[in-house]
């Protein structure tokens, strides 16, 4: 068989080197100019050592989702890998350890669960790893050698990557890993001389590989982030780990605080001093932050809150993805509490939109909730990100000398944005409060003042429209079926649209990073041009559909994708075909 695209999954338990395997393969592929997407899944239950999988999809052309099914499974832990078999496509393969020293009962044996249409490759991973390094470590590298042969991948890209990754651990480690790789390759070549061929463009340029969380962290730091406060929570912690390491190099700081309330509190404190500040959390943390986000709205303090969504409600599904936090992001505050809500669709978006988020937060003195999710945050993908260092398109507007004379912190302006000085700056001082207040910032409970100030706060969101990242219309302009979606499901839906097009059904999609506020005119024009509208999203309620329905008075077909990891483009395509069938009837 010739392959132009492959999906490989490593499955094992802690210590099996699942993540490092996928990093080597994805790094090797990216360096060879292949497009890659990597998705890691950890089980929430720590049973024994805890199962984890890492799936790598790579292709000569851009990869937008994890696709459907896998070609190869490397079962480094036998029993744990059994559940993964059902994802293997017909003609796919399973690599398993044939050198397990202890007897394995039939029910726990990976081999016994492999269906005949899938090829099992028993490779003495343990024996070969021992031969290479004198220990069981390196079974993953042995299996990589086997994979490399089985799919006719160029050996050199792996060898280079192994050298690159293990270099800092010393020559001996590099050598034993290279030996392990060679042994796996040779064993497989001898035992299974008939292999597949991966067809690739040898002249492709190396690509960079980045996760959504990394892109968010680096995007933020490149646009002047100087303060990060957070509390560890799956799946957002990585962002804090990056800023913790990198911010001090930029004279900034990251503090791990006692809870998410303190995290957003510290962010508001830092922002109060004029510092670009951010926190990152997941649903439970966002729930705790609600009150202080409200304060951020009321006191008009810039803040960027990244919410890497996981399944909810409550503690929910810490290691599964769901797009269930749209409502709390939009509406999770007491009173009339407008806030910017954005949702990036890919790593590149994460980088560019977090910078746009800071633009909006700073200029409009508002909290911005940035809705990433577990899949987007953790997956690695190759993307062409142009770094934008020292990016500051907009900042907080300063008062003129005239305005400073009788400084009003919440001066009424046409666009609703009041000029601002911060502690440490000369000219005036003021206090801010979560109480209703007048233009000076002093508590005031008169209803007229309250109305005026509420109008001011909402006015900012109208003014903002001119500064929003533009919407994109994707697909066939003349299509009758229009699609709306948000966040990380975009990739699978986009691929689903392509599959549908292959089957003769044209569609178009409105892609908007902005959830609130939106460029309403563009949405209205788009929806008016569609005979049928489908809204795809990964939650039970149809939270985005509800927003669109109430804003644009549309009656879409709502597709509520259950929390799965990740979304199947084939199923999206099937739904599109179904809607098309109804339309043409």
């Amino acid at each position, binding site marked *: 068989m010739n392959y132009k695209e492959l999906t490989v999954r490593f499955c094992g338990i802690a210590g099996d080197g699942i993540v490092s395997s996928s990093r080597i393969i994805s790094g090797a592929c990216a360096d060879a100019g292949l497009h890659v997407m990597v998705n890691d899944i950890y089980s929430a239950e720590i049973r024994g050592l805890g199962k984890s999988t890492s799936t790598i999809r790579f292709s000569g052309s851009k990869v937008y989702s994890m696709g459907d099914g896998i070609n190869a499974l490397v079962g480094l832990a036998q029993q744990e890998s059994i559940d993964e078999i059902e994802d293997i496509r017909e003609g796919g393969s399973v690599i398993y350890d044939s050198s397990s020293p202890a007897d394995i009962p039939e029910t726990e044996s990976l081999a016994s669960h492999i269906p005949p249409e899938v090829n099992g490759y028993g490779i003495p991973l343990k024996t070969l790893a021992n031969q290479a390094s004198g220990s069981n470590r390196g079974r993953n590298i042995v299996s990589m050698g086997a994979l490399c042969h089985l799919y006719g991948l160029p050996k050199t890209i792996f060898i280079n990557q192994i050298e690159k990754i293990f270099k800092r651990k010393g020559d001996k480690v590099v050598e034993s890993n290279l030996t392990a790789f060679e042994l796996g390759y040779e064993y497989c070549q001898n035992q299974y001389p008939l292999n597949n061929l991966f067809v690739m463009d040898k002249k492709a340029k190396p690509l960079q590989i980045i996760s959504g969380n990394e892109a968010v962290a680096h995007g933020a730091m490149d646009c002047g982030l100087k303060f990060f406060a957070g509390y560890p929570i799956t799946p957002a912690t990585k962002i804090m780990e990056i800023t913790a390491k990198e911010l001090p190099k930029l004279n900034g700081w990251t503090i791990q605080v006692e809870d998410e309330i303190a995290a957003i509190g510290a962010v508001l404190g830092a922002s109060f001093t004029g510092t670009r500040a951010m926190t990152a959390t997941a649903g439970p943390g966002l729930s705790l932050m609600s009150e202080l986000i409200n*304060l951020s709205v009321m006191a008009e303090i810039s803040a960027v809150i990244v919410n890497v969504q996981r399944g909810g409600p409550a503690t929910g599904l810490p290691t599964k993805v769901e797009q269930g936090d749209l409502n709390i992001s939009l509406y999770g505050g007491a009173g009339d509490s407008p806030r910017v809500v954005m949702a990036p669709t890919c790593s590149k978006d994460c980088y560019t939109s977090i910078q746009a988020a800071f633009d909006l937060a700073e200029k409009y003195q508002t909290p911005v909730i940035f809705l990433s999710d577990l899949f987007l945050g953790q997956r690695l993908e190759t993307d062409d990100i142009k770094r934008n260092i020292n990016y500051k398109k907009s900042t907080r507007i300063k008062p003129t000398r005239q305005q400073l004379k009788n400084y009003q912190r919440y001066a009424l302006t046409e666009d609703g944005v009041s000029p601002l000085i911060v*502690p440490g700056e000369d000219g005036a001082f003021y*206090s801010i409060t979560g109480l209703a207040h007048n233009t000076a910032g002093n508590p005031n409970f008169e209803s007229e003042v309250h109305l005026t100030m509420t109008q001011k706060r909402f006015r900012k969101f109208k003014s903002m429209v001119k500064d929003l990242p533009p919407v994109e219309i994707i697909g066939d302009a003349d299509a009758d079926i229009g699609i709306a979606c948000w966040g990380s499901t975009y990739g699978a839906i986009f691929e689903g649209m392509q599959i549908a097009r292959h089957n003769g059904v044209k569609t178009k999609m409105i892609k908007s990073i902005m959830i609130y506020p939106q460029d309403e005119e563009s949405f209205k024009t788009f929806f008016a041009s569609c005979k049928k509208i489908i809204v795809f999203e990964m939650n039970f309620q149809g939270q985005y559909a509800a927003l669109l329905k109430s804003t644009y008075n549309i009656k879409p077909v709502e597709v509520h994708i259950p929390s799965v990891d990740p979304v199947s483009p084939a199923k999206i395509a099937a739904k599109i075909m179904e809607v098309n069938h109804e339309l043409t009837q």
Partner: protein
Amino acid sequence: MNSLNKRAVLEGLERAKIKNKSKWRDILPTWCPGCGHFTALNGLYEAALDLKIPEKNFVVVSGIGCSGRFPFFIKGFGFHALHGRALPIATGIKIANPELTVIVVGGDGDGVGIGGGHFPHAVRNNLDITYILLDNSIYGLTKGQVSPTSPVGMISGTTPYGNIARPINPTTLALAYGATFVARVFSRERQDVSDLIKQALQHKGFSLIHDLSPCVEFNRLITYKSWNQVVGKFPEDYKADNRTLALQYAESKEPVYLGLFLKENIPTFNDHVKQIFKKIDSTEKS
């Protein structure tokens, strides 16, 4: 604010003998005449004057409660935050701009009730901030309910059959958490309050002023009089350099000691940050 209130407030200021009003922002305190909080406000005015803290660098953060309005009465930047959340906000302010003098003012409900979870961590970080905890053992703003420092048996709106829970001792907590400056003052002792607030502001690190600041309106049990009967001074040779000893003194019911319990000089959070910056700079250069 109506004229009646204004008169009451001016009376309050008068009774509190706030003479030096140059640090007073032209907003009238909302407290009842005789409220212990005036003493702390006066202490802060005097400390700011003595230490010549510029207004632009003077930041007062507060939570919710009677104490919450503090920032509006002082010339400087104020952050009237949410109930219990002053300490995390002050943490962000001080890390983001170490040049600022950051004072946190809160009540007993704010500090050891709703915000009790933040207290140990603010102490732990040893940021160079001063926390004035105005303890009146009552929820005054909501017109008289028990607080975390109210005594057992106290009858209040929400404890009509008497308070069951035992009171928290904020001084003990601060000492146990590892605060590097812990003092207890009594709003009646105006000079001591001013002196210790000044010392606290001068201290490099987290400083706690636990101010016994009676509520003249809603607390009939804990009053100037009741405190007056039990407060006492440290022995002459008390050195305020031994945490274990300080804890013993803090727990004493009779007398309830007033004064500086402990002062310890260790690097502050920002000192550590600076050190790390330096280290990174030098490794990057080499």
